[in-house]
């Protein structure tokens, strides 16, 4: 159906792609995997025409075609779900569905949108503004738009990042039915489990080159070796060993009847205690209250009810409390880092900023942080120029040494296995004995692996709260969708 031959793409002196070939048949799902920075997203953008390739050829149904702009791509029926949805936040759902489409009859398009949504089991309200939707719902809308445009080649770049388990099931169902209809589907992902569940063939990229191809059934070990090269210099994924879970100790944060109206569902009279030494994983559908809970822990959102942190009723944001609690947001570049500031400037800003800054001020400390935290960059590299994994490492390096309460949203979002393991390893090493980590993650396996206790949110309430070793994936996934057995009600 579609074939890429010997694709090269250079950004200035950076060689992003150095001779990649890929062939995808109609009616099949083809997986593309690789480490962060292996060139997966670049390759896909070349295929849609979003970026122009440096050299190489593209064949569509056996004929050579010219794809230099997305216009060429869409006219051939190539469509892509980008990792960050490329849509229009302030326009309505229907406007987003229609933007760029040939047809402009609102009533007819509205009917078509609802019919398509119905067919795949999506719930979308055409007149809502897009900013009311979760990332998962925006992705569903984009998918429907592409299906309506009669695409024959569908590319998905990390489609399950930031969406809920239920949305993922709906998405996979939709992909399988598109495959039945003869669509050629390319799935780019970090997650081997979903590649194994969906794909017929698999291409592995490493440093801008095709290193291996496999047919179903895949051999997990050889896939991993091809992705990362040799596995040796990396610590094995930590278990709960370093954190003491036995015997609940002193309270660190205590919520009593806390309500908030921010976020999608807000918080509805949440009461719970978080203890020293705990690693708590927060689960739930997108926007069920986890993120609001975290931000209230960090004292970032207004709320009613009482929140006690570090054993004193927090009144005005005391400087002491601020230095002890640290919040790492999911959207690193917009909430955590300042894109145009360098590594050195970030460290200076985080610590006691001197009144005057000479070019050498803080350079040594920055160099030291770069070494300790294994950041790929120079003291003068701007945060925006770092890759996702290195941005996360920079954020970690900014955590003050005396931080006792580390609050994180999707700590390993967009990181490959190796960077993710590194992050967790480091967090556990740094955490003082009287500290705690609270994190929200859409990845239940991460919660099972890393947390000592899991709290599941549903519609702004805590629906399940247990130590991890007393529950299982099945129970958690049911709780996420609001189903709990009568005996595992909320502990108070």
């Amino acid at each position, binding site marked *: 159906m579609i074939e890429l031959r010997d694709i090269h793409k250079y*950004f200035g002196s950076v060689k992003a792609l150095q001779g990649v070939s890929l062939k995808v048949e109609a009616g099949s799902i083809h997986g593309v995997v690789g480490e962060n920075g292996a060139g997966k997203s670049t390759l896909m*953008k070349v295929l*849609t025409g*979003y*970026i*122009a390739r440096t050299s190489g050829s593209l064949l569509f149904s056996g004929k050579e075609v010219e794809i230099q*702009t*997305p*216009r060429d*791509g*869409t*006219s051939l029926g190539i469509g*892509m779900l*980008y990792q960050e949805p*490329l*849509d*229009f*936040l*302030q*326009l309505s759902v229907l*406007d987003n569905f*229609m*933007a*760029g489409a040939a047809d*402009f009859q609102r009533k007819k398009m509205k009917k078509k949108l609802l019919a398509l949504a119905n067919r795949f089991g999506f719930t979308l309200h055409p007149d809502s503004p897009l900013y009311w939707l979760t990332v998962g719902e925006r992705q569903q809308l984009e998918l429907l738009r592409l299906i309506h445009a009669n695409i024959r080649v569908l590319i998905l770049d990390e489609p399950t990042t930031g969406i809920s388990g239920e949305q993922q099931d709906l998405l996979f169902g939709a992909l399988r039915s598109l495959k039945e209809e003869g669509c050629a589907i390319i799935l780019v992902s970090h997650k081997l489990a979903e590649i194994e569940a969906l794909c017929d063939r698999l291409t592995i990229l490493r440093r801008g080159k095709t290193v291996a191809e496999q047919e179903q059934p895949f051999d997990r070990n050889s896939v991993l070796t091809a992705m990362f090269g040799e596995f040796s210099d990396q610590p094995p994924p930590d278990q709960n060993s370093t954190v003491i879970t036995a015997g609940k100790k002193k309270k660190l944060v205590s919520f009593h009847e806390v309500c908030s109206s921010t976020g999608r569902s807000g918080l509805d009279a949440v009461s719970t205690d978080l203890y020293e030494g705990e690693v708590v994983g927060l689960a739930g559908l997108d926007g069920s209250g986890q993120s609001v809970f975290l931000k209230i822990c960090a004292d970032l959102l207004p709320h009613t009810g009482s929140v006690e942190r570090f054993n004193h009723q927090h009144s005005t944001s005391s400087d002491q409390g601020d230095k002890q609690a640290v919040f790492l947001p999911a959207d690193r570049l917009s909430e955590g880092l300042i894109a145009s500031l360098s590594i050195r400037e970030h460290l200076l800003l985080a610590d006691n900023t001197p009144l005057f800054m000479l070019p050498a001020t803080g350079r040594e400390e920055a160099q030291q942080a770069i070494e300790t935290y294994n950041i790929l960059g120079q003291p003068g590299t701007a945060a925006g120029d770092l890759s996702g994994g290195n941005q996360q490492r920079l954020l970690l390096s900014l955590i003050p040494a005396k931080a006792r309460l580390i609050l994180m949203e999707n700590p390993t979002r967009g990181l490959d296995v190796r960077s993710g393991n590194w992050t967790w390893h480091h967090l556990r090493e740094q955490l003082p004995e009287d500290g705690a980590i609270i994190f929200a993650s859409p990845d239940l396996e991460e919660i099972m692996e890393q947390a000592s206790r899991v709290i599941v949110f549903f519609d702004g309430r805590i629906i399940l709260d247990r130590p991890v070793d007393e529950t299982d994936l099945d129970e958690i996934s049911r709780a996420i969708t609001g189903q709990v057995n009568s005996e595992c009600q909320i502990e108070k």
Partner: protein
Amino acid sequence: MDVSIPVLAAGIAATSAPLIFAALGEALTEKGGVINLSLDGTILLSAMTGFAAASATGSVWPGFAAAAATGMAVALVLSVIGIWLGQSQVAVGFALTFLCRDLAYFLGTSYSRTPGPQQLAAPVPLLSKLPLVGPIFFNHSLIVYASFLLIPLLWYFMYHTRQGLILRSVGENPEGCWARGIRPRLTQTIYTLAGGALVGIGGAAFSLAIKPGWGRPQGCEGIGWIALALVIFGGWHPLRVALGAYIFGLLQISGILLQDIFPTLPSQIFQVAPFPLMIFTLVIIHFSRNRQDRWFSRLMALLSGSPPRALGRSHQQE
């Protein structure tokens, strides 16, 4: 002084007409994500070229055409540098403001205080005889009628046509448009030029109808900045921008009237009154955001709009 409501309303409609063209032109440009700060200079320059072309030909129509072309020419400079070369639209716009102003005074010297053609009131037959409505809406020059028509036309275009949707999409997220096969920079260029033409017509509306003639000062200085403020005040929505323009017209006219009532107050107070009032309105909108009063906060929500998310940022292809 005898003031009747129809006379007052007709006065507002006429004095606001150039502002309607300028503010709606800028709204069109900004809706696509481009900010054209050169408005004040463009209005002055096109007022001059419009008057010059009308004087040379003896008819107002070539004047309006020349003014529109002037507005487009300025917008073209901005488009090339601000959209295609990706340089700061704010910096280019500012430079163009002052360049155009000085150019207008310099090139227009020979037309200063010379008699020239102007567009006279053209009452619409029958309709202008209607009580109340007649004198307010149907006893104006053609350019004022055109300003009435422009408001619904632009609103319909932006919110009910395919091209209007593309325009709004480009202003929101040019990368998203590029991925869909739309050419964001071409779209932005088209609407920057179209917006520039409207601003140019606004300039000619001054020199050929509302404040006829050319000289230094012409009397339209400062209006460009008002138009820019009105676009923000109106939340980038054509109907609200137009409403803002009429409110500004009302303030200007009432300034003249109040001056007659309070002759002891210095006249400057009434001339500058609209500006602090506009700032005051923005402050009220801000403080009403968190009010418990439902009705009031809803009204205020209607008045405040969000800027196009990509405003002032040009799309660069990778």
